């Protein structure tokens, strides 16, 4: 069992890593390539929900349960049949864990490929509305069409980290941290590579990049597929994690993966920290997670016993919760209005490393200087 002292810290770190990884994928497509993906939640939810439900079916199959048990009885009841079996067989659980993440990534990547069709053709504002609509449609369909994940209340995941015993939340933090680190290294590598410069060229000037022989459509499609697949893997990880700490998720349309937290907040993070700057995304994720933790965890815990005479019971609690939105929104507005480039500016990526650049420049300039001088002296 994680001790009470570091419990909140683990919670904070887990959330931070999730936001970091998710915002980095958004940065890849929005910051660097210039695709405003207002339907980010679609890929996270698709990876999470379909990854979780596919894992569930596999687990049912492994324990010889009927596959429609998931829909006929409460998932917690089914989990009570699966989880003890998994506890005896942690390797099977680990395999299922890997399967859930990979399957989530594949499903989300396929959806990314599908959504690249309109993403290439429509103008930004229409694309924004379309992706937003697609995300909402997915939320409605999964919530109301039971054969997908069993309806709104039934999304859960078997206990896949059972091998870690009482340290599951700690293990999940480490796994998400490693995943976020991997995404960060990948995003850094993309940003500094020739591919990154091509992506920026596509973002800045389509015509020019096409004139230079770049296949704009293919480049955009690839980035959309890659970042969607990563988002799907994050969704699967988040579902497994959330199922452990919260039991059931959902209960209402879009409450499993709310648009606000999985589309809008990553945008806030990317804009706040600085678009197309991975370190900026790091800072932004830290600030936003901190803000969220303070307004929803720390301050309500402080004021939980404060009652104002004549007012409702949980007035301060509720007000603090909605104040979170006001602060986040104002922060985004302030950045957009007064510092559009974000806290950390986008750094140019050099084709030749800076260290070598100086030596080369002095060599070339030195040569040209001597050439210039030679006619004068001669």
């Amino acid at each position, binding site marked *: 069992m994680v001790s009470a002292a570091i419990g909140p810290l683990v919670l904070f770190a887990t959330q931070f890593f999730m936001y970091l990884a998710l915002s980095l994928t958004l940065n890849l497509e929005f910051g660097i390539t210039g695709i405003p993906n207002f339907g980010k939640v679609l890929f996270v939810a698709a990876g999470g929900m379909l990854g979780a439900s596919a894992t569930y079916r596999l687990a049912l199959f492994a324990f010889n349960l009927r596959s429609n048990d998931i829909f006929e009885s409460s998932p917690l009841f089914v989990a009570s049949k699966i989880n003890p079996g998994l506890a005896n067989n942690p390797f099977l659980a680990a395999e299922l864990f890997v399967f859930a993440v990979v399957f989530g990534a594949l499903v989300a990547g396929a959806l990314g490929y599908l959504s690249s069709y309109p993403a290439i053709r429509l103008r930004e*504002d229409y694309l924004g509305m379309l992706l937003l609509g697609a995300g909402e449609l997915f939320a409605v369909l999964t919530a*109301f069409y039971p054969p997908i994940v069993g309806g709104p209340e039934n999304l859960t995941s078997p206990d896949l980290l059972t091998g870690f015993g009482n340290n599951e939340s700690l293990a999940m933090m480490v796994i998400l941290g490693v995943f976020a680190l991997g995404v960060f290294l990948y995003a850094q590598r993309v940003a500094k590579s020739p591919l990154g410069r091509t992506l920026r060229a596509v973002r800045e000037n389509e015509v020019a990049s096409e004139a230079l022989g770049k296949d704009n459509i293919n480049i955009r499609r690839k980035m959309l597929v890659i970042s969607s697949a990563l988002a799907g893997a994050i969704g699967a990880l988040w579902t497994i994690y959330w199922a452990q700490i919260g039991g059931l998720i959902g209960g209402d349309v879009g409450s499993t993966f709310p648009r606000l937290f999985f589309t809008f907040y990553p945008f*806030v993070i990317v804009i706040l920290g600085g678009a197309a700057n991975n370190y900026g995304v790091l800072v932004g994720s830290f600030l936003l997670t901190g803000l969220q933790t303070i307004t929803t965890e720390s301050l309500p815990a402080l004021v939980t016993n404060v009652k104002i005479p004549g007012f409702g019971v949980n007035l301060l609690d509720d007000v603090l919760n909605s104040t979170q939105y006001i602060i986040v929104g104002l922060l985004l507005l302030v950045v957009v209005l007064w510092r559009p480039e974000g806290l950390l500016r986008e750094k140019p990526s050099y084709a030749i490393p800076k260290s070598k650049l100086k030596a080369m420049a002095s060599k070339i300039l030195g040569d040209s200087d001597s050439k210039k001088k030679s006619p004068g002296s001669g």
Partner: protein
Amino acid sequence: MIDPLLTASIEYGGLLSIMCLGLTVTYQTTKVPNFAFSDFAVIGMNASYFSFAIFRLGNTYLSIPFGFVAGGVFSVAMYVVVMRPLIRRNSSIVVLMIATLAVDIVFTGVAQDIVYVGGSIFYKQFVHVGLPTLVDAPPLPDFRLFGESGLLLMSPLLLVITTLSMYLLLTKSRFGIAMRASIENPNLAKTVGINVERVYLVSWFVAGALAGVAGSLYTIWDGMSLGIQSVLILDIFAGSVLGGLSSIYGAVLGGLVVAFAENALLGWLSLNVNTGFSLLEVGGASMIMLIITLLVAPRGIVGVNWKRFDWRKR
């Protein structure tokens, strides 16, 4: 007695079309899909509830002016504080969209705080009119007319009044001509001496005020619940895109189509084919229509050349 599916479609269609009309006006002027638009409707709903309780109006329709003013004021505030500086700076569409997103997040919190704090401050007044809590507020009272709800008359009536006055404003008044000129070509309009920014300001006020009125009507239709704006915006977008985002008449038509599809069509399908269809009512049907419209006919139903499909001429 009229079929309840039909009455629901008409009641909701009227108020949804008013909102689609408003969104189209803002899209026309500033060329940005306003994610925060449904928040003006929520502000109108709040204005309705508070004026109803505080001034003991008795008749809910008397609260519509409050919704009109509140929605308009918030809309103008958003335009002056956020949109105008960004437009002056020639910001890209994506930046403008993100700004409206930010305003949406702020208004979500503001509306919730109004409900929590205001509901607590005016607790006695709300209890007096039978509304102990505003968190999931029940619909406000409506009058009856020949055994039908008053909204069945008032919602389409207000839609007709709105559309007519928009038509008169745009075609018969000097201001309307200035407005159309600034929509068509802002730079040319500036050179002939039209104050384009003032035109935009007034358009935003009108749009927000219309959303406020629709919000007031919505309190009679379905009450008010926290977070209703995130569902409403889907229907508004669907209706406006279906109408092509280019003409106010298209917006009215689009709003009506969405409302009828959600209420009458899905209601009929769930009664006669499969009960599962009723579950698409919350956002599902409108999103399907939005996606299909954007993929097949991005200019909306008004932009399609229908004569092409006329088989009689051949």
